[in-house]
């Protein structure tokens, strides 16, 4: 079996409720900061839960002229602006026709649809309501004229986007790919999760005995991907493997044994030509719903065997909420930063262990460690399971 072309994640850029660039995001994670607050931008008075990981002001871009008045697009472009700063590029130092954009989202620009149907028939509102509109806006902003791809595997979208981006590089369709995910908080999604009663009135407590649900957050997270042999300077790390599998079980609930996630993890390890014993750190999906964390723990134990008990496993959703389409990309970048900085961010608000969740979840404070191979897991509505294998630089 031939080894697949190695794909480097050269740099990353983010905008999140805990920090509007990569350094601020990392600092907030390792110091245990929380981005959860009362929602101010969205009308929530009639909803059971009125908090989330809301970004109060998108601050990075000084001049939004020419950028649509669409929050989803602006999150993406704010993340791209940070990426450009991190990677020290823009304009792109490449033939623009060889630069692709691949983004994952669970909601696209649906808030524009809400506005349009609410009577604000701005010229672009309906166009921007299509889920692939923000990706095209991003490509225009970057000056990228290669393929533009939008994926929507629910809350696993960010992982799928990074994998599709790697595929574009391996197939030779692009020489550089800006890939990642985004989603904006809007009334549409808050109403939806409110109806499902999966939002917590308490803090988000992944893997804690008292966990009672998730809180939503908004974010944008983008990485610059290139074939490793084409990268001459520094890089953040390497995307070694990806696996996906469908539960085929339920629209909104995970399969009770986590078989789909287990298959995705095994597929990712196989894609990376690695064994469970090679994994040094797991970034869990860890939403803090009673079902998710128990099922995910069981899937990790089966997929990794005894190694599951030997490696740290964290969830960063206690810090910033569940950022949906951005979550997997943010978690992938967190993994690579952990390897680079020698520190694993804690699982915020984990105080009382759950006997059914008996792995090492990094409670309390950040832990010194320098993992080399990392697994990042994602699960989404419709039974979408994704797993990424990453390697530190």
């Amino acid at each position, binding site marked *: 079996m031939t080894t697949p072309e190695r794909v480097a994640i050269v740099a990353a850029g983010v905008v999140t409720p805990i920090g509007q660039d990569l350094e601020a995001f990392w600092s907030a994670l390792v110091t245990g900061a929380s981005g959860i607050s009362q929602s101010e931008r969205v009308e929530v008075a009639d909803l059971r839960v009125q908090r989330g990981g809301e970004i109060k002001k998108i601050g990075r871009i000084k001049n939004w002229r020419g950028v649509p008045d669409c929050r989803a697009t602006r999150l993406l472009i704010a993340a791209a602006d940070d990426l450009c700063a991190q990677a020290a590029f823009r304009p792109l130092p490449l033939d623009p*026709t060889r630069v692709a954009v691949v983004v994952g989202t*669970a909601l*696209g620009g*649906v808030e524009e*649809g*809400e506005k*349009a*149907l*609410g009577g604000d*028939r701005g010229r672009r509102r*309906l*166009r921007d*309501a*299509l*889920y*692939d509109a923000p990706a*095209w806006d991003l490509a225009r902003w970057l000056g990228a*004229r290669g*393929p*533009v*791809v*939008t*994926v*929507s*595997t*629910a809350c696993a979208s960010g992982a*799928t986007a990074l994998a*599709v981006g790697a*595929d574009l590089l391996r*197939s030779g*369709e692009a020489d550089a790919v800006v890939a990642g995910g985004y989603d904006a908080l809007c009334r*549409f999604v808050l*109403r*939806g*999760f409110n*109806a*499902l009663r999966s939002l917590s009135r308490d803090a988000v407590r992944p893997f804690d005995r008292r966990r009672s649900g998730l809180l939503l957050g908004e974010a944008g997270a983008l990485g610059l991907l290139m074939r490793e042999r084409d990268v001459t300077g520094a890089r953040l790390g390497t995307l070694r493997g990806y*696996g*996906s*599998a*469908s*539960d*085929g*079980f*339920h*629209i*909104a609930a995970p399969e009770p044994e986590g*078989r*789909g996630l287990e*298959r995705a993890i095994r*597929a990712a390890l196989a894609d990376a030509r690695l064994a469970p014993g090679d994994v040094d750190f797991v970034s869990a999906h860890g939403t803090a719903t009673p079902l998710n964390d128990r099922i995910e723990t069981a899937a990790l134990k089966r997929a990794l065997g005894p190694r599951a008990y030997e490696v740290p496993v964290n969830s960063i959703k206690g810090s910033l909420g569940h950022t949906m389409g951005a979550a997997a990309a943010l978690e992938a970048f967190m993994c690579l930063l952990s390897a680079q900085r020698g520190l694993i961010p804690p699982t915020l608000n984990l105080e009382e262990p759950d006997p059914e969740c008996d792995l090492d979840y990094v409670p309390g404070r950040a832990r010194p460690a320098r993992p080399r191979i990392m697994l990042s897991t994602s699960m*989404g*509505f*419709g*039974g*979408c399971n994704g797993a990424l294998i990453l390697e530190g630089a």
Partner: protein
Amino acid sequence: MRAPEVRGLGLLTGGPTPGEGASVLTLARPDRPGDRFRRATRECLLALAAVDAMLEDGKAAREAIAGERTALLYVTAAAYGASNRQFIERRGGVVHFAYTAPAVVPAEVAIEFGVTGPYGILIGGAPATLRAIEQAARLLETGTCDRALVLVVEIFEECADLYTTRRRYHGWPLVETAGCLWLEPGAGDLSFQSSRVVHGSSRAGGGERFAAAPVAQLGEWLGRSANGPLELSGRWRGEEARLRWSGVRSHARDGAA
């Protein structure tokens, strides 16, 4: 790249010939018995009907596509629009959340037919579907799966009034389409190319079908008993994609048909 061959194709289309002045050629909501489908949206039920039609075309039982060796790739440009609108406006009954997400359409197929292998969901027009066929070919070539389903659904009726304000962006009439393509390893060649263009429209078979256009093109080609290499193409927004595909026909399917 090694090309897959078509083991079966299910294609439901909103009308054989566009009527004079018709703006949207619609597909009826399939009647699917069972309590499990009480919340399913029209796009979900059309996806299931397309898979049923595909199995019939391939003269196969549903067990033939079940399991973790079957990949499922779903593409749509806008089939979530109807459920999103209904959820926002709370009209015409209740759309239950999560049924607003594009991901639930392939999920219903996965649940109903027991498909538990690799998956992908692309949002876009015809180029996204051509890319999905290429992804399926890659999954088959690398042995990641034994068969791949490429599912497309586009519905327009519930948002017809919104599309009238955007006519400069797409062709006309809008033709609702649901299709599912069953691919297995083949012996031909497949090449995919995409490039930027100024304007995008995904016309095929006498109307605008967005992501479903290439599947409609393929259906026409198979229906003509054509042979030789096939070229599928389509535009969306600023992209044009082309797929050159030899060895499309499957002995298993042609023998069955």
